[in-house]
């Protein structure tokens, strides 16, 4: 697979996982409304009115899925807040400082490389920051390409040569160019909303409100009691697993964006080999990046917790990691550089 095919396949994967994610959220949210708040998708149903002696449509529940909407609003609000205030808070928490043109050879080089990558991407140059940390890592943040930041650690500046630095900056520039901050904010909003609903469902005392209500209203839902109970049990199981499932989905998207950033970074520099050798150096530095909080892990070039989880290439470890295993990323890049010819193995 060449660079463009790789990018297209990563974009398709992101879209597919996003559809599953939204579907899962609707399942949880609408289920909550259905079982707890009496929401019914078909609000008008004919029922016998004994007083007047004629059929009259009677609303059997709320016509609007209030719970779903409220959860989405709260989740979205929190995510939007983190999107607006995030960059400033991240920079403050990492003690990053601005790179200066007269701050020595390496800093000037870093600034130059950032503006080169901005030229290659056809975007305004992001602000360049340096994080005082000896580990090798880098991250990007910002709402829009016009207002974004690329930060690298001091260790990365000291250990990488110009071309490798260019590869890393290209990867971060690609996160900005692909609007990954927004993608991950949508994921965070969905995750927050799902967590909210599952928390509600766990705490509310009206467990099975709808199923008991259904059997009491009798005639309207004839013989639906058993099926509804089964549905409810399945749904409750899903709710119990919801936090971990939504996390898995969000992490799957995060990993897909990493592959995409690698591929479009290679498109910017037309030099996948430099990024390969940078990734190998970063991989060799197994220390955690203490200055970088886990909250921005998905915008980093590698997981700031060090390679503890990452090197375990087991199935479960893979499912909950923000980044794909370094080995697979390097292999995918080698395929793009025509150094390996196993496109099947390069995919997840």
């Amino acid at each position, binding site marked *: 697979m060449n660079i463009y095919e790789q990018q297209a396949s990563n974009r398709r994967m992101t879209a597919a996982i996003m559809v599953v994610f939204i579907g899962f959220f609707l399942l949880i949210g609408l289920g909550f409304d259905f079982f707890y708040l009496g929401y019914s998708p078909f609000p008008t149903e004919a029922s016998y009115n004994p007083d007047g002696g004629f059929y009259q449509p009677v609303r059997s529940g709320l016509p609007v899925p209030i719970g779903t909407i409220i959860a989405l609003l709260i989740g979205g609000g929190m995510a939007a807040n983190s999107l607006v205030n995030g960059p400033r808070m991240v920079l403050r928490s990492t003690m990053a400082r601005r790179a200066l043109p007269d701050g020595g*050879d390496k800093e*000037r080089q870093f600034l*130059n490389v950032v*503006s*080169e990558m901005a*030229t290659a*991407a*056809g975007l305004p140059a992001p602000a360049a920051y340096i994080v005082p940390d000896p580990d090798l890592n880098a991250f990007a943040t910002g709402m829009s390409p016009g207002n974004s930041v690329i930060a690298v650690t001091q260790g990365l500046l000291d250990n990488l040569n*110009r071309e490798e630095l260019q590869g890393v900056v290209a990867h971060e520039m690609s996160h900005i160019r692909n609007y990954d901050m927004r993608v991950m904010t949508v994921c965070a909003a969905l995750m927050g909303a799902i967590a909210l609903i599952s928390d509600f469902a766990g705490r509310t005392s009206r467990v099975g409100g709808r199923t008991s209500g259904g059997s009491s209203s009798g005639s309207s839902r004839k013989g639906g009691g058993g099926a509804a109970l089964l549905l409810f049990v399945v749904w409750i199981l899903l709710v119990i697993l919801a936090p971990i499932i939504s996390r898995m989905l969000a992490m799957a998207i995060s990993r897909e964006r990493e592959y995409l950033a690698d591929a479009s970074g290679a498109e910017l520099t*037309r030099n996948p080999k430099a990024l390969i050798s940078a990734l190998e150096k970063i991989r060799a530095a197994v220390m955690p990046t203490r200055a970088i909080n886990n909250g921005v892990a998905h915008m980093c070039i590698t997981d700031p917790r060090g390679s503890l989880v990452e090197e375990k290439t087991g199935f479960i470890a893979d499912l909950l990691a923000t980044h794909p295993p370094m080995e697979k990323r390097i292999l995918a890049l080698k395929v793009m550089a025509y150094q390996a010819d196993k496109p099947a193995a390069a995919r997840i």
Partner: protein
Amino acid sequence: MIIFAIVLLLLAAWLIFTFNGLVGLRNQVANAFRQIDVQLKRRHDLIPNLVESVKGEMKFERETLERVIQARTAAVAAGQGGNMNEIMAKEGALTQALGKLIALSENYPNLKANESVKTLMEELTHTENQISFARQFYNDIVTKFNTKQQVFPTNMFAALLGFSPATLWELPADSPERENVKVNLSI
């Protein structure tokens, strides 16, 4: 009748979208070209400084330095002339002369130790990269613009609407950058 009107409306809407899309891309092409121009100017301004500061140390490379200066003068003249092919050819020659100078400077440890030369060399590498990335971006945009004009069914209307394919920034056939690299492996 109504169906006919709807079809006509859809066609008009499609034409408007296509036209606006093409106008947007045409402006992007012009802007991307301007970016290359900016970087080329930067390079022209940088060279006299560079030559001045390495002259003392690299006196045995007089020929290479001369060629850089000549190539720069020719490129500046071509830039004022404004002929696209001429600019590409002269800038290509300048790129090649500078590449040789950078490669040769590696042989001079004193130069590498010199702070101001080091700064200038970084600046030069930066400018060379900027030029090649600006060129790469320009070519990408031009390819997008041209593809958009050439795909069916836009290809039937593009010329009518006044669009023509833009030229890629290519090296002319007689460019020194195109010459085969000679590698001497004999000992």
